[in-house]
């Protein structure tokens, strides 16, 4: 992940990414995913560049970025942990994982001040027979109890 505060860099990354997606129909979502994959988030400076490149209004681009849960306006922590709170995981005590995170001083949807961890909720990871489920940095864990969540948060699993 390369992040830079420099507008020139954001602009050049966005223009290059859009060039890769220009031939696609309805290219905005694939372009946003690619921008986020490169920069770790979709910075505000990317919006006018995307609008210009894809012949959209800035309002259109802003509307899309803010509509979808996946697109971040700020960088995430080095570890991103998502706790599934959908019904199947609720039935196996997902709320206890949320309580555990809260007791550890982590707020859902926020990144710790030191930038180490972001904890979020997610509704269904498709692992409904082996819940409660948690995803950490793209990896799925099943049958997670508070103790294992602790290990995941500490990076020891």
């Amino acid at each position, binding site marked *: 992940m390369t992040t830079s505060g420099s507008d020139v860099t954001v602009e050049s990354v966005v223009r290059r990414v859009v060039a890769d997606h220009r031939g696609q129909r309805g290219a*905005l979502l694939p372009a946003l995913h690619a921008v986020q994959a490169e920069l770790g988030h979709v910075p505000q400076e990317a919006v006018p560049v995307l609008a210009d490149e894809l012949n959209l209004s800035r309002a259109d681009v802003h509307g899309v970025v803010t509509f979808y849960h996946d697109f971040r306006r700020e960088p995430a922590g080095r570890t991103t942990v998502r706790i599934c709170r959908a019904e199947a995981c609720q039935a196996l005590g997902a709320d206890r994982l949320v309580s555990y995170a809260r007791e550890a001083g982590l707020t859902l949807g926020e990144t710790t001040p030191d930038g180490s961890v972001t904890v979020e909720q997610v509704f269904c990871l*498709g*692992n409904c027979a082996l819940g409660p489920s948690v995803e950490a940095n793209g990896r799925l864990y099943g049958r997670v109890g508070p*103790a294992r969540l602790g290990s995941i948060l500490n990076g020891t699993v």
Partner: protein
Amino acid sequence: MNNSSPADASVGATAGSPADIPDGAPSHCATTVYVPRDSAARSVGADEVAAALQRAATRGDFAVDVVRNGSRGMLWLEPMVEVATPRGRVGYGPVTPEDVDGLLAAGLLDGADHPLRLGLVDELPWLARQNRVTFARVGVIDPLSPRDYVEHGGLAGLRAALALAPADVVAEVTESGLRGRGGAGFPAGIKWKTVLECADELKFVCCNADEGDSGTFADRMVMEGDPFLLIEGMTIAAHAVGASEGYLYIRSEYPDAIATMREAIELARGQGWLGKGVLGSALDFDLHVRVGAGAYICGEETSMLESLEGKRGMVRAKPPIPAIEGLFGKPTVVNNVLTLTTVPTVLANGAKAYQDLGVGRSRGTQVFQLGGNIARGGIVETAFGITLRELIEEYGGGTHTGRPVRTVQVGGPLGAYLPDSLFDLPMDYEAFAEAGAMLGHGGIVVFDDTVDMAAQARFAMEFCAEESCGKCTPCRVGSVRGVEVIDKIVAGTHRDENLALLEDLCDLMTDGSLCAMGGLTPMPVRSALTHFSDDFHGGRRLLEIQPVNATGVRTEGTA
């Protein structure tokens, strides 16, 4: 992500027909061992088990070919390792990496006895009693081996379809009685006929793989376990309606399915199964994967189309229906993964064979997904008509916690919560509708007696508030009001007046919402009120549950 794929000599082959696919079998006498690559299996350690096997093979004097298959769907046994023996595939599970050395020492490679030995997998009653049609190959084959696919009957449906005129393919699908498996249950053949009869030059086939409902994972498993089947189904749809481009919209929460489908599409292009002149026919069809961005509403077909067009996933008013004005305003088939993966079987075996399964107007098989608090969760594919009780008790074995089953939510977060008195209901679209419930996508989520149904009803409203696209007021505002009203009822504030208000709010959301998000949210709420009204009188969780079991749930590390 460590999405390892087995070495396969046929990968990358460019032969035009399956007969030309080079033999991918290893020349030495290695024993084939299967370790699933399905993400549910990986979530409980399948990658580590596969790695331990490889390490042991490197150290020892035996030869092992580790094939990363899909999952058979007996998820409580994952990671389930299978060994190919002369008598058939012998299963062991659940296997941890620490078990591997002991298993090998006990004679794993000969299918020998061991406490984890399950027996011949095909004969395990849980599996043998099912009627696997769509899932016939899932867990059996290497998902990314074109050779495996063809050897196990793949492409028979597409070949049969290409020999027919488009209208005859549509007639066959209509005749089979296949209804959309995404939840609404609309007859697939009628939708296809509408698209076929549109005169446009450009038409699309879109597969809705935004499986966002809790308790549903069959789409994910079929994409990870038999991706060519979905490609085949979409290609048949393209031929049937005259489409030249296909889009597969997969939710971002399924990274393994996305990677598997992308790889399978590349392989299919190399085999001549996609692209110009599919299988030497006049059909030109290509397929693209698009990734969602975390919006439940994009599982609604018109929201999905907006999202594919690069917009916010806002619901469209119907008419016009997508079959006439769909993606980019063009005629579009929108079907769910399970609908499209059923089509090859219908074409290969004929409409009659499919029609013969099921009950009433619910024909064929349904892929039921057992999840939540259940002892034996996983995939049960059987003909329609099986009862909920058979699924929960006989297949599921009751709850994971060992406590009594209190309720089951069927059909996702917008489906009803059913009490024990309705567990003998046959799984049938019409029977469920009559009982104020819906079969939806066949997802079944089990709860034990610690569940607080007022909390579940509140969650249904909260989820709707969180995930509403915001276009229509009943859904956007009604759901927020729903949370407030339920809070007042539980707190005992003007309970009767607020119950009447909640009833009125449910009516309004049902009648006035633009799509099923707001329109069906009242279903879980009302079913909770109807069948579990005691829970709305406050304090159930405090007075009844905690003295019984303060934690309620047995999970790893807490038992």
